[in-house]
């Protein structure tokens, strides 16, 4: 029952949107397609749904050739970023639409349809709102209606295109957790597209990071975060700072200091670029090891405190430090910043 995508290509005119993309989604897996805008993630999702025709490649679902099946018969639930609800229909009518679209021979009875609608309404926690029109609902509620509508056709796969993109941060977090629970209950193979790395890392069983129409890396959130395959992956999954360095005997030489290198990939000696996360610095006394800097601002709100620093070597960085350290510092203090450990790419 797995979804197997092999060698999908698709271009718009000369612009290649998908370039030989291959992926495998296991049965019941929750897979995230992550990437910057223009990376082809939405195009891939639309190709799977049949809303876009691929130029080449194949998609199989438990052996069945999906690309040979027209959209209407694919039974793939699709949730759109802007909900795409039918405005002139009530919530109930929206949810029932798919069931009523079935051919007369397969169409459930009226009683069965309304029972199913009730069941779905309670699944998406909208009991009693069946009579409302979409315009009478909040954004989060609308998205849940869209989800219920997609689930009503008992899809083989569920596809979500930036499902929380249009919602505010708090609603988003609530819906995220809820969607995770829902997935655990339904066990449906689910693929969702997002440009929000936090969302992808928190929700998905596995994440496929796309760049320029290619899969840059695919793996569990832990794998991506702790063992990024490229500078792009590292940079995309969080803020990072880059410094020129010199690799020698498995260590990086930065600002006159030897720093251990993280990651499994081997490194050739010679000049390279070192990547550090904002929380990867040790704050020391002025003229200590590392970069010399002046504090411009100390920001104490948030889980970590942040130091906005100006480097003597030009440029400014914002590092994250524990509150205990930040409380002793003030703007205009001089400090040194030593990277604890770095990742290195050529």
């Amino acid at each position: 029952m797995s979804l197997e995508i092999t060698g999908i290509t698709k271009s718009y005119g000369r612009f290649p949107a998908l370039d030989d993309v291959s992926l495998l989604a296991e049965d019941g897996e929750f897979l995230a397609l992550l990437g910057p805008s223009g990376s082809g993630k939405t195009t891939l999702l639309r190709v799977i749904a049949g809303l876009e025709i691929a130029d080449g490649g194949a998609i199989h679902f438990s052996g069945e050739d999906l690309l040979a099946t027209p959209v209407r018969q694919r039974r793939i639930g699709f949730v759109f970023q802007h909900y795409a609800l039918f405005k002139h229909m009530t919530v109930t009518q929206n949810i029932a639409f798919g069931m009523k679209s079935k051919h007369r021979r397969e169409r459930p009875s009226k009683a069965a349809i309304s029972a199913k609608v009730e069941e779905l309404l309670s699944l998406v926690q909208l009991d009693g709102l069946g009579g409302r029109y979409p315009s009478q609902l909040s954004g989060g509620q609308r998205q849940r209606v869209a989800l219920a509508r997609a689930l009503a056709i008992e899809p083989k796969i569920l596809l979500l295109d930036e499902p929380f993109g249009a919602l505010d941060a708090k609603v988003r977090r609530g819906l995220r957790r809820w969607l995770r629970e829902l997935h655990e209950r339904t066990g449906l193979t689910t693929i969702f597209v997002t440009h929000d790395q936090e969302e992808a890392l928190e929700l998905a069983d596995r994440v496929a990071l796309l760049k320029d129409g290619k899969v840059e890396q695919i793996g569990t959130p832990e794998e991506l975060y702790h063992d990024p395959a490229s500078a792009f992956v590292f940079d995309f999954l969080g803020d990072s700072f880059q410094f020129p360095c010199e690799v020698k005997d498995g260590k990086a030489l930065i600002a006159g200091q030897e720093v251990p290198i993280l990651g499994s990939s081997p490194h050739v000696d010679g000049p390279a670029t070192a990547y550090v996360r904002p929380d990867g610095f040790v704050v020391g006394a002025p003229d200590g090891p590392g970069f010399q800097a002046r504090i411009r601002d100390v920001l104490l709100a948030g889980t970590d405190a942040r130091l906005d620093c100006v480097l003597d070597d030009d440029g400014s960085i914002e590092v994250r430090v524990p509150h205990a350290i930040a409380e002793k510092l003030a703007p205009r203090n001089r400090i040194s910043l030593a990277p604890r450990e770095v990742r290195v790419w050529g």
Partner: protein
Amino acid sequence: MSPAKRSWRFVEPSALPGFGPALGLTMAYLSFFLLVPLAALVLRPWEHGADHVFAVVSAERTLDALRLSFGAAFFAACVNAVFGTIVAWVLVRYDFPGKRILDAFVDLPFALPTAVAGIALVTIYAPNGPIGSIIEPMGLKVAYTPLGVMVALVFVGFPFVVRAIQPVLEEVQIDVEEAAATLGANRFRTISQVIFPAVLPSLLMGFSLALARAVGEYGSVTFIAGNQQNVSEIAPLLIIIHLEEFDYAGAAAIGLAMLLISIVMLFGLNLIQAKVAGRGER
């Protein structure tokens, strides 16, 4: 605690200034250009007494003219509703060479003096015209018949439906159609259940406009209708005939009858439209 009692207000206070002057200007404008002339029309017919008014309006000739005017206008608006929708659909949904020119052509009936349109229509539908000479032997007479009246009214009302629907059709999001497809709906169901209901309010508006325009049409119809009493004589023409006989009261009486029928008709259409548009907006 119950809310404090408040004295009755004409309007809720608004943050937008200028309600007073704006309403004043609107009322003055409407009064001057609409209400006062219409009031004159209401007052005019009674100079020879109510009997005269009743006699003119209930005359067989007047009733036939009114029936033809409103009947043909209604059918013409229906025809325009169907084909106007198709034209708007083609103009919005497809790209083809010459689309802009076609789009510009839609407005032509607005720009042309209607008498010119009438002459053009007679030229092609007359028994010796290019279309008339083909369809007459088949038993289909257009020129100088009620059917000709309808053709002329279709012509003058055509742009309304197209222009009313076009912007709404452009706004119907593609993703709604895609959603319908992923839910298993075929094309017919998508159009009838998803797109048509979204367009319906503006279709009704276009229909009302086309209908209103057709009811009042005079110029193009008189050429093609042949103006036979009780057969192809429209009410506006009958009004002119009364005027030429210096029967101003009689002319105003027919005018008043048209006004009343129009008001009822447009009010009814507005009610339906408001009801349809209200779905999903409440």
